[in-house]
């Protein structure tokens, strides 16, 4: 079966990348060590593969346009962001933080390498420089047809390595905060997050991307996670800020038996944002929950692409995505459930509900079920529409004017996803942002969120 488009449907990257790479090599983490050889190999692979073209099925509604035509350079250390970090840091003495400003680690706000009781949390560049883990293991490419994976491996400049040994838990949540800002045309960062959870280990990961002032920066993120048997991973991702930042991220994970994976994505900012989630449920009795919210305005294009593979019997997955689209917003959702033949007694569900606030907004939603086992429960449902008339009437019958009623119901529609964040501090940040964002949100400004 042909799952991916042939390479000739891909777009050739600009030649200028060769010079950019040659120049960058000396300053990327792991310079003059065996890491360089891995980077060179991956860069060759990137040049050969190129970027997915518009005829590649999962990129149909998200044409790359000038992202594929531009030769992005790594950020320069002198570029500064004027974002107030305090607004986005997760408070708490037990939080381990890694903060990156335009891809550069912010030592003041970041914790030093934490290595206690079977838990290791450190920055990717430290790991690459120290060489304790081989670059071959850190700079892997899981999807060889996509180009962005190899580009990331070649240029990987920031991110984190998190290892929790069997039966251990991180002392508290881990926050990885990426902030961009200043003028960053044709610049990119290539963060990479590597997560390994042993059997029965647990981790709360909070990932924040702040698209700062006037930044046209491209974030090309790769997250690679191994969730061991009986392990628990709770992963929150908040994308927030202006409508110019560009983000392409792939989260790829293998989940073993009895593990629990809960992931909640909220895209409240960014210009072109694409979240790709690939999960292989390779054991039984797994509970995997994928939640997502996108609030999209004119000038924004938000795309969520999920592929959940059930390869073993008796696991459960649920995709729950909601979108609010205003102005001339564009969004796409593609959720695939692939139940392999041995995966009997699979329960796999998918929901994608969209609220269109404007007649000019556009949503392309595509469920895809591929089922080879005969004893399964699978369902999918997608809607696109306006606010419920009966609900509006309920609020107005309590005295609320139509605008307040609309704003409150729109807030409630979106908030249902945000409430699934594992972190209540992140939930508060997201709620406040949503009130700033929503048409008429100032009406609810006095709400205690």
């Amino acid at each position, binding site marked *: 079966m042909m799952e991916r488009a042939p390479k000739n449907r891909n777009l050739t990257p600009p030649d200028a990348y060769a010079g950019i790479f040659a120049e960058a090599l000396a300053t990327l983490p792991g310079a003059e060590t065996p890491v360089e050889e891995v980077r060179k190999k991956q860069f060759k692979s990137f040049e050969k593969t190129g970027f997915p073209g518009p005829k590649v099925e999962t990129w149909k509604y998200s044409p790359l346009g000038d992202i594929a035509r531009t030769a992005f350079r790594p950020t320069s250390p002198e570029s500064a962001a004027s974002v107030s970090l305090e607004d986005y840091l997760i408070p708490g003495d037990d939080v381990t933080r890694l903060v990156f400003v335009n891809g550069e680690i912010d030592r003041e706000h970041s914790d030093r390498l934490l290595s206690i009781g079977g838990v290791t949390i450190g920055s990717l560049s430290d790991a690459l420089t120290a060489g304790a883990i081989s670059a071959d293991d850190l700079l892997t490419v899981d999807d060889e047809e996509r180009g962005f994976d190899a580009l990331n491996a070649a240029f990987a400049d920031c991110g984190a390595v998190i290892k929790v040994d069997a039966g251990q838990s991180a002392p508290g949540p881990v926050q990885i905060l990426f902030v961009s800002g200043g003028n960053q045309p044709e610049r990119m960062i290539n963060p990479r997050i590597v997560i390994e959870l042993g059997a029965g280990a647990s981790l709360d990961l909070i990932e924040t991307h702040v698209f700062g002032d006037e930044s046209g920066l491209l974030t090309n993120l790769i997250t690679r996670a191994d969730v061991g048997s009986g392990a628990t991973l709770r992963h929150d991702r908040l994308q927030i800020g202006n409508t110019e930042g560009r983000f392409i991220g792939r989260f790829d994970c293998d989940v073993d038996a009895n593990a629990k994976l809960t992931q909640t994505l909220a895209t409240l900012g960014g210009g072109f944002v694409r979240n790709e989630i690939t999960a292989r449920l390779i054991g039984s009795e797994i509970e995997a929950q994928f939640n997502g919210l996108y609030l999209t305005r004119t000038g924004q294009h938000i795309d969520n692409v999920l592929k959940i593979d059930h390869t073993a019997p008796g696991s459960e997955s649920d995709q729950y995505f909601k979108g609010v689209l205003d102005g001339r917003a564009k969004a796409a959702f593609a959720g695939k459930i692939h139940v392999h033949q041995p995966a009997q007694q699979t329960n796999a569900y998918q929901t994608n509900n969209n609220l269109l606030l404007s007649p000019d907004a556009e949503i392309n939603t595509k469920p895809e079920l591929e089922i080879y086992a005969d004893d399964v429960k699978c369902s999918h449902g997608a809607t696109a529409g306006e606010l419920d*008339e009966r*609900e509006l009437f309920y*609020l*107005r*019958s309590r*005295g*609320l004017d139509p605008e307040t009623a609309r704003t409150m*119901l729109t807030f*409630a529609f979106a*908030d249902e996803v945000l409430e699934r964040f594992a972190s209540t501090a992140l939930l508060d940040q997201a709620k406040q942002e949503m009130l700033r964002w929503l048409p008429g949100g100032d009406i609810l400004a006095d709400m205690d969120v």
Partner: protein
Amino acid sequence: MLKIENLEAGVEEKQILKGLNLEVKPGEVHAIMGPNGSGKSTLGYMLAGRDGYDVAGGSVLYEGEDLLEMEPEERAAAGIFLAFQYPVEIPGVANMYFLRTALNSIRRERGEDEIDAASFLKMVREKAKVVGVKPELLKRAVNFGFSGGEKKRNEILQMAVLEPKFAILDETDSGLDIDALRTVADGVNQLRTPDRAMVVITHYQRLLDYIQPDVVHVMLDGRIVRSGGKELALELEKSGYAGFEGGAVAQAVA
């Protein structure tokens, strides 16, 4: 206070109310009983201002004003309240905040000052106690994840906070166990005042053991076919709707 004359209304091609007459005076509690499909809930929705009904004839006067010309929020400000049969869930909006927003919207519309947060808090806590709404439900999102009984009590709490002049209770008793029913009824009874009127829509005579109506109406096929005292409810309990207007009954039940 409320005078409905010969009201004919429906949705699209389907006529639901077929010449309904009803007059309610201040301080009165009226019960409207009738089988499914007789138009009881439609009447409640129409009085509260839900969109989408075509009025073919008749009139509704509320305190001398043409009620059908008013928007739902104008009616709320004028003192009309409908306790919903199926209250709406509002995730992420705390019950307390919703109540305060509703009350202040109504006060603003009436040209009154907004209530300050401290007095509001005190007032809601007292009223919640009276109608049996647990304090933690005030902090939770409106009706979100509430049980059926909690939702109904929450409707009564909203009524207690908004202090309407004219309240319609649409099958507030359905889905309630006997204890919940008694608490809800106690709450309603406490809100009975000489200048406040209520219309209680119900399937069952049971609720009327706890809320003593001044007038009982039997509604069949879009009309009130008989009105009487509370003994009418007992009669209904014994003989069902079969004794009222044979033809209409057969049609309504079908």
